[in-house]
């Protein structure tokens, strides 16, 4: 009986984790953008690291239900580390520096994860915000190492894997960011569709009940928080490596707040939310900044207010519609596969 249940659950998980046609389309489009629009690679690079950053927030907000206003702490740490490693000539190879920056951010994430286990949403907001502010203050107070308010200038990034040198048009940078994003996306996808990912959703739904079916809530939260910090660190390192610069701005509150907006635009609780959100956000920001260079924040704020007033559920409908369509396409292409019912309210 029990083994039948295990098999059934395993089969369901496998069905859920199957690649949908639209997912192929998404990544093919991303790959195509590498060759078709070479003139837009600079903004596409920004989209790529922002997407990774948003993916990182989605892991804790969308899957584990932890609200964070200080996710920039890990982003900033990764950013400064990557810049420092290159500037001091400690590790000249970008990929290795990238991984190391991510690991250090993960260590910080692990250390601070115990702070977010306790208390209500408000306490979590405050604590995450506080951590980011402290990180910013540290970077500000050790100008010998970080360059203080001027930022870390004169960083020279070595060629990737010793072969591909960054060029000024951002072609290599974009290919690099996209590759990193894709690899880490695959990893996140694997994690989210694993039993571990399922247990996270249970924790998000109701921690008390999750605990009563013997899911160790705190351990899961610590794990995913650390994991997400790793992603944020990598995203920050990508920023530093592609711009060859790091400044205090990476820790700013606006960065954490903008990130929330990115994720909300795309929708929380499914992996493409952060990616789609990043595309829309950057294009919108680019467009608005062209119209009113100084006051674009006003329109960003207006978008936030409107999203909440209209209701995120209703905004989520359009992505929901796309997903229903995707299910249909999947069924038509693979008639044998049983459709997985999407519970209402999931992913919003």
């Amino acid at each position: 009986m029990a083994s039948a249940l295990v098999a059934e659950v395993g089969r369901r998980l496998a069905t859920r984790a199957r690649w949908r046609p639209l997912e192929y389309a998404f990544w093919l489009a991303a790959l195509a953008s590498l060759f078709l629009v070479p003139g837009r690679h600079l903004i596409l690079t920004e989209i790529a690291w922002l997407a990774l950053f948003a993916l990182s927030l989605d892991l804790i907000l969308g899957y584990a239900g932890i609200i964070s206003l200080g996710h920039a702490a890990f982003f900033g740490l990764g950013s400064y580390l990557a810049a420092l490693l290159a500037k001091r000539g400690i590790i000249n190879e970008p990929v290795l520096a990238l991984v190391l920056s991510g690991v250090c951010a993960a260590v910080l994430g692990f250390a601070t994860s115990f702070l977010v286990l306790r208390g209500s949403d408000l306490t979590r907001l405050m604590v995450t915000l506080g951590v980011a502010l402290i990180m910013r203050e540290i970077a500000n107070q050790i100008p010998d190492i970080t360059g203080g308010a001027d930022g870390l200038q004169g960083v020279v990034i070595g060629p990737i894997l010793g072969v591909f040198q960054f060029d000024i048009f951002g072609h290599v940078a974009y290919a690099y960011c996209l590759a990193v994003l894709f690899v880490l996306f695959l990893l996140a996808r694997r994690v989210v569709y694993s039993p571990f990912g399922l247990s996270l959703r249970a924790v998000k739904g109701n921690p008390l009940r999750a605990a009563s079916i013997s899911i160790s809530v705190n351990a899961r939260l610590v794990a995913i928080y650390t994991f997400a910090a790793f992603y944020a660190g990598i995203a920050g390192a990508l920023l530093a490596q592609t711009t060859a610069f790091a400044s205090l701005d990476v820790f700013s509150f606006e960065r954490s707040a903008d990130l929330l907006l990115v994720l909300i635009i795309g929708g929380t609780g499914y992996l493409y939310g952060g990616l789609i959100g990043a595309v829309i956000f950057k294009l919108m920001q680019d467009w608005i900044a062209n119209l009113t260079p100084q006051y674009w924040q006003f329109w960003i704020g207006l978008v936030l207010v409107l999203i909440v007033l209209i209701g995120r559920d209703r905004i989520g409908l359009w992505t929901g519609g796309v997903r229903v369509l995707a299910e249909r396409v999947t069924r038509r292409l693979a008639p044998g596969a049983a459709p997985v019912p999407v519970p209402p309210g999931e992913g919003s």
Partner: protein
Amino acid sequence: MLTILFDGIAYGMLLFVLACGLSVTLGLMNFVNLAHGAFAMAGGYITLILVNRAGLPFFAGLAIAFFVTALIGVVFERTLYVHVYGKSHLDQVLFTIGLVFMAVAAVDYVMGSQQVFIQIPSALQGRFEIFGVGVGRYRLLIIVVCGLLTLALQLILSSTRFGSRLRASVDDARVARGLGVNVNAVFTLTFAAGSGLAGLGGALGAEILGLDPTFPLKYMVYFLIVVTVGGTSSITGPFAASLLIGIADVAGKYYVPKFGAFVIYTIMIVLLILRPQGLFARAAGR
């Protein structure tokens, strides 16, 4: 030494006036209002326009700032905030951050991005010595005004009919409703008063805290610290928390300028870990 204590108290009192409205809204409606600082900024700029441009006396400017900000508060509460009460904390945070961004950009557009100063009467400038302690006149004024306000608030809260309704609503809004308290009206009034006080605080504090379009973002953290540390069930909690933070911040910046900002954030995180319900709050009954 005593001067630092004095400055710290003035600063703390100011923080209390700025933040007490936030603490009540949070306690009453469980509503996270990150845009509270925007009301303070509005008060500051209103006073600036009235005093510097229209030439009104300083105190008249303060009073008008209070009422105008309260009015803005009512309008916003009735038209916008009321839709967001039932939503999740995440929605509330997003919504109010959006408001902050809009306020910052709008003020930047209208008033310019540079830091501005309100002309205070010459009688209030300078400092004098009492028993060897240097006392700034303006800071003394702040302490007196804020002290009176605190007393008035405490009296209203503890011994008027409105105060008891408010306390009942904070303790348990559902039961209060059942007993015939119009919780929504109580809330609107409180929101207005809280916004007005924030506006007054912003106007009073422009001299000490500085006033520029990023004010709501810069001081948001301080308000939140006051509220989370002080708890939301009374006004004595936030009051004590404000004083503590004011003194710690001023002393920290004076004695260890290199670690000035750490002191305050570290205090916040440690307190949140040790006392998640707030420093002086009783354990929540709900």
